[in-house]
């Protein structure tokens, strides 16, 4: 077994028992990336020298029997929208080509302090705007389960890297499903904690009232380990919430017979792929077998979530992305014209079609005369969606539904039609509107094409522990699903 295939839990145990070294793991991981990433294109940057240097340093600490830091050299891939000191951070956009942040995001700082190693920066839809990874200005990441299909987005590079063992675990961000959707498409575990649970300082903003950092891993306990490190209050982020951080790893224990589950019927209606429905219904049988109480429920306003979400996200994006003007960092296109001309040329040539479309719509929705009809209206609808969730959570501990209405689709299938692409997020984005925690876990595969299907578990604010407990119990029941790996046979076609 190559050491990049380890889960985080196994890695930490083997390091503590001194059965392996950090250097071996980093070397195996980089070797594997070099083998597969020419095809998959998960990474925008591989942190070769620095990762090896850190590994050697940590091995020395471990050998000298000093205190082993909690992450003990664990290789972690980071979505390229999260600032890494000294490492180019592009948001997969041409406008940030060459931008080297002078500081680490708080999440990266905490990972480094805990002894984690940044193995590389992963691809995404430009500025996290997309559901397929196809809007990256640099490359399209492919789905390791079927390289004619998308890995989902926007954290598609992180999801594909985890699924194909190009890292042990990864960070993503989730504004409307950008961690959970690619987790579903790539058959891994993806968690978006409660809004305010994880600091967003140093995470380049897309839609500030929706954005949240999340984790993609090979198992439930793996993401719990990293949650323990990166969650918690940060004075540098004014939306960070000062609540105590429990031990998420200890919430991964057996037994769910004290829990009540609601199935929102709106998430099982039209547009849901039959095989996705079938597999999710099987999970529900499993939850009942395990002693959980499951009932059908309703979120009556949920059909309005999608337009409300996209209006809010685009309005906030148009404001957040106004700072990319070529003056202080990144791309500048300057010829004989004046300042205005430099702004226009830099932004128009530096930003891609999807980003421009969203900035245009957001600017329109915020402009004089339209603000009340669009932006204000959307924020009011958001209140209704939030109330729907508040109501069902009075009766149920958790909600269960599919993560995506469809299995991974083909590269090129949806990119020309923005509205069809938006619909991919229909089950995930209401969770962001309400700021709730959600997790996606692989619950099986389509029969003919063997494509992963994701189950979504949604909880009350700051009740990630219950979500992790349920996911862990399902994972214990589904050992054969977890054990299944993507077949990287496409490598045979490559002269590597």
């Amino acid at each position, binding site marked *: 077994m190559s050491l990049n295939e380890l889960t985080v839990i196994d890695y930490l145990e083997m390091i503590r028992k001194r059965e392996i070294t950090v250097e071996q793991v980093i070397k195996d991981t980089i070797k594997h990336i070099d083998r597969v990433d020419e095809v998959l294109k998960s990474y925008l940057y591989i942190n070769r020298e620095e990762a090896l240097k850190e590994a050697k340093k940590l091995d020395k600490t471990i050998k000298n029997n000093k205190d082993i830091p909690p992450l003990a050299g664990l290789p972690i891939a980071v979505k390229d929208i999260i600032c890494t000191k000294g490492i180019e951070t592009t948001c997969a956009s041409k406008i940030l080509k060459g931008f080297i942040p002078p500081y680490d995001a708080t999440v990266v700082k905490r990972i480094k302090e805990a002894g984690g190693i940044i193995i590389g920066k992963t691809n995404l839809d430009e500025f996290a705007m997309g559901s397929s990874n196809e809007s990256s200005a640099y490359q399209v990441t492919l789905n390791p389960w079927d390289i004619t299909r998308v890995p989902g987005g926007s954290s598609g590079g992180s999801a594909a890297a985890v699924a194909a063992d190009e890292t042990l675990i990864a960070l993503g961000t989730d504004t409307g499903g950008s961690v959970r959707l690619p987790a579903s498409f790539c058959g891994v575990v993806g968690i978006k904690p409660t809004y305010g649970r994880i600091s967003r300082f140093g995470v380049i903003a897309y839609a500030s009232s929706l954005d949240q950092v999340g984790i993609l891993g090979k198992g439930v306990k793996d993401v719990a380990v990293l949650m323990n490190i990166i969650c918690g209050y940060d004075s540098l982020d004014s939306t960070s919430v000062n609540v105590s951080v429990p031990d998420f790893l200890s919430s991964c224990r057996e037994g769910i017979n004290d829990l009540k589950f609601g199935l929102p019927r709106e998430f099982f209606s039209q547009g849901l792929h039959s095989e996705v429905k079938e597999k999710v219904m099987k999970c529900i049988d499993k939850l009942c077998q395990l002693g959980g109480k499951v009932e059908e429920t309703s979120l009556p306003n949920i059909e309005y979530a999608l337009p409300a979400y996209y209006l809010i996200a685009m309005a906030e994006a148009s404001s957040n992305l106004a700072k990319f003007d070529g003056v202080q960092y990144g791309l500048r296109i300057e010829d004989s014209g004046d300042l205005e001309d430099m702004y226009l040329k830099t932004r128009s040539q530096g930003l891609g079609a999807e980003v421009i*479309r969203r900035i*245009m719509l957001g600017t329109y929705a915020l402009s004089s005369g339209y603000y009340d009809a669009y932006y204000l209206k959307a924020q009011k*609808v958001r209140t209704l969606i939030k109330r729907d969730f508040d109501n069902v959570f009075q009766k149920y501990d958790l909600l269960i539904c599919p993560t995506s209405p469809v299995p991974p689709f083909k590269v090129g299938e949806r990119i020309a039609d923005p509205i069809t692409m938006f619909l991919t997020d229909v089950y995930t984005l209401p969770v962001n509107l309400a700021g709730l925690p959600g997790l996606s876990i692989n619950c099986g595969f389509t029969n003919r094409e063997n494509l992963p299907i994701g189950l979504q578990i949604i909880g009350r604010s700051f009740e990630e522990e219950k979500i992790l407990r349920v996911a862990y119990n399902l994972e214990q029941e589904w050992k054969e699903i977890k054990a299944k790996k993507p077949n990287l046979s496409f490598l045979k076609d490559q002269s590597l």
Partner: protein
Amino acid sequence: MSEKIITKKDVEYVAKLAKLELSEEQKEIFSQQLNDILSFFAKLKELDTEQIPPTWHLVASSEHFHEDIVQPSLPQDTVLGMTRYQENGYFRVPRIL
């Protein structure tokens, strides 16, 4: 889509507000796509929200204060070092007037 919510002229105006320069072809494509998307968003009109307050913030405890302690900021040369367009400790930009 039926009604035209946004015209090519609107697209030009919005592009100007957003500091974007669009080609004729982009203007055509965006007017079409923006119309389609806005018609889709019009669904929200079905809901009566007269008495509903907007949700601006998800975090209820927005009033937390911290001690006013001076913290070091990034050194000037680090910040200016992110661009080659700098001169005498300032960012250099093209003529403004």
